[in-house]
């Protein structure tokens, strides 16, 4: 509820940061379907985020499309095809090989975006103007648009995604994924077709992250190969672990927290990587269950006083 009144209470800069955070949350939510629920650590989710963002940029540049709904539809399609392709190769493996393979494949896209500059603009990237929302033309004041109308748009998309993901992980399909995560052999024994389930999870995960990329493109205004570099995949992993990948809300909390952390760290010092890296190291050493895991732990302890 607080999120709905936010634009009237806090200043536009905060709203933009919050919007970035919500978008990252959608991506992390998708990512966590693989890590938290299926037990697969992908180090290549930047591929789907980038695919979503570049789909928007290409639609603007080559097809002169300006409608946000078409952007979203396009990126769902593209990221679904891409994740089907990648997933087909990757789900044959688990653990470290899965991680390396997703990383390698995502870097194919990065190197293409980087080198094919006559299509992608190379490191200069492609500009994305403010889109029309639900058929209504963009208003002139970009800041005003992004901080109000676009914020609500992202918030609505976020709510839908959270709802969808909630339904998915609590469906029989979601339970099957968790069974695969916990014990592959047993899951196979009770008749779950492991590879197919993993592939479906991979595709759903890819689509969520692709949608996040599509929402991100107009907000950022520029799509460049940076969203495809594998260290960005690492940031998605970081967010999810920060929030706690064993809980449903963990990735959401982690993504918003990470976005604020990064925004302020970048503004505060050029050595923001040092700061964030230290946070990550301390986190995995001291609080491996993340923010939500720790909150649950503390809450549990308070309920049962010893």
């Amino acid at each position: 509820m607080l999120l709905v009144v936010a634009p009237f209470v806090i200043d536009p800069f905060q709203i933009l940061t919050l919007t970035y955070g919500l978008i990252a949350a959608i991506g992390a939510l998708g990512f966590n379907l693989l890590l938290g629920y299926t037990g697969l650590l992908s180090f290549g989710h930047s591929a789907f985020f980038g695919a979503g963002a570049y789909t928007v940029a290409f639609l603007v540049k080559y097809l002169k499309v300006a409608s946000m709904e078409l952007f979203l539809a396009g990126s769902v399609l593209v990221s679904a095809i891409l994740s089907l392709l990648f997933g087909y190769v990757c789900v044959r493996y688990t653990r470290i090989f899965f991680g390396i393979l997703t990383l390698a494949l995502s870097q194919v896209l990065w190197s293409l975006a980087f080198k094919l500059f006559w299509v992608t603009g190379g490191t200069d990237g492609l500009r994305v103007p403010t889109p029309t929302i639900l058929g209504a033309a963009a208003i002139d004041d970009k800041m005003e648009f992004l901080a109000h109308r676009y914020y609500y748009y992202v918030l609505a998309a976020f709510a839908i995604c959270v709802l969808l993901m909630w339904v998915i992980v609590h469906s029989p399909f979601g339970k099957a994924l968790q069974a695969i995560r916990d014990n592959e052999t047993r899951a196979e024994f009770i008749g779950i077709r492991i590879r197919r389930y993993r592939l479906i999870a991979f595709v759903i995960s890819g689509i969520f992250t692709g949608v996040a990329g599509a929402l991100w493109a107009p907000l950022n205004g520029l799509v460049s190969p940076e969203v495809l570099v594998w260290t960005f995949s690492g940031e998605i992993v970081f967010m999810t672990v920060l929030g706690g990948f064993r809980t449903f809300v963990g990735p959401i909390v982690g993504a918003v927290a990470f976005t604020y952390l990064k925004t302020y760290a970048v503004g505060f010092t050029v050595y923001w990587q040092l700061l964030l890296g230290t946070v990550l190291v301390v986190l995995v050493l001291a609080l491996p269950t993340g923010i939500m895991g720790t909150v649950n732990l503390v809450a549990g302890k308070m309920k049962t006083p010893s």
Partner: protein
Amino acid sequence: MGVYVIHILNALLYSSVLFLIAGGLSLIYGVMRILNLAHGNLYALGAFVTAWAIGTALEAGAPTAVLLLLLPAGAVAAGAAGGVIERTLLRPFYKRPEEYQLLMTFGLLMILEDLIRLIWGPNPLSATTVYATLGSISIGGDRYPAYNLVIIAVGILAALFLWAFIYRTRFGVFLRATSQDKRMASALGVNVDRIYIQAFTLGCFMAGLGGAIVVPSQSAVLGMGVDALVLAFIVVVIGGLGSLEGALAGALIVGVVREAGITFFPEAELAVLYLIAALVLLARPAGLFGRA
């Protein structure tokens, strides 16, 4: 004719440096089952330390021979850093899921990247004096920098030494035993803790050596570590993670493809490499020399 020789030498040049980086990565994974994402940064550390050492010695007016002797400084620094990292940061993770080890090394990657920036600043550091003093030789009428031959020689020597080390010494037997079955090795009296720190230090030393020998021919720049890591990944994926023969074969393949790529298909050079890696994984999941 001379052109072809030069192409072959260039391919060997890439392969040598790549073997040093990927060999270290593979060694660490083979023994410890840790995929070190910060490995590229240790390579960068080696490059920066060597460039800094040579630059400092040059200001002090040291002769060329001293400069050449200073080359391994980066390798020693990277090895030492590796030893410290293993002891303090990796040790708590051996009994926890691999995901945490990956995250820890990712955190290390971010930290090392910025530590290098903090210490040496954002500008590239070069040690071209060494490169220039060695001059060039003539191959079929074309000039070729003599220093490149040094790099190739170091690469070949490193491969030979490593082979002798692992297959002909007592330490090598312990190393292979630990990599095959850690608990059994431990039960038979191998000090696994010590093997771990030695393996990690050796792996980091190799990466540092790669950086140290490459820095006179191309300056040390920020971000070189992350770039190198991705290439090293391709090498180990092709060759087989955990296998040194695989790292050698992978480095040769990637070296040749890169040299051919830069000449014939510069736009798709990297993409072709990734595609080769993906194809190898589809045909032989564990890589050319890997154990499943």
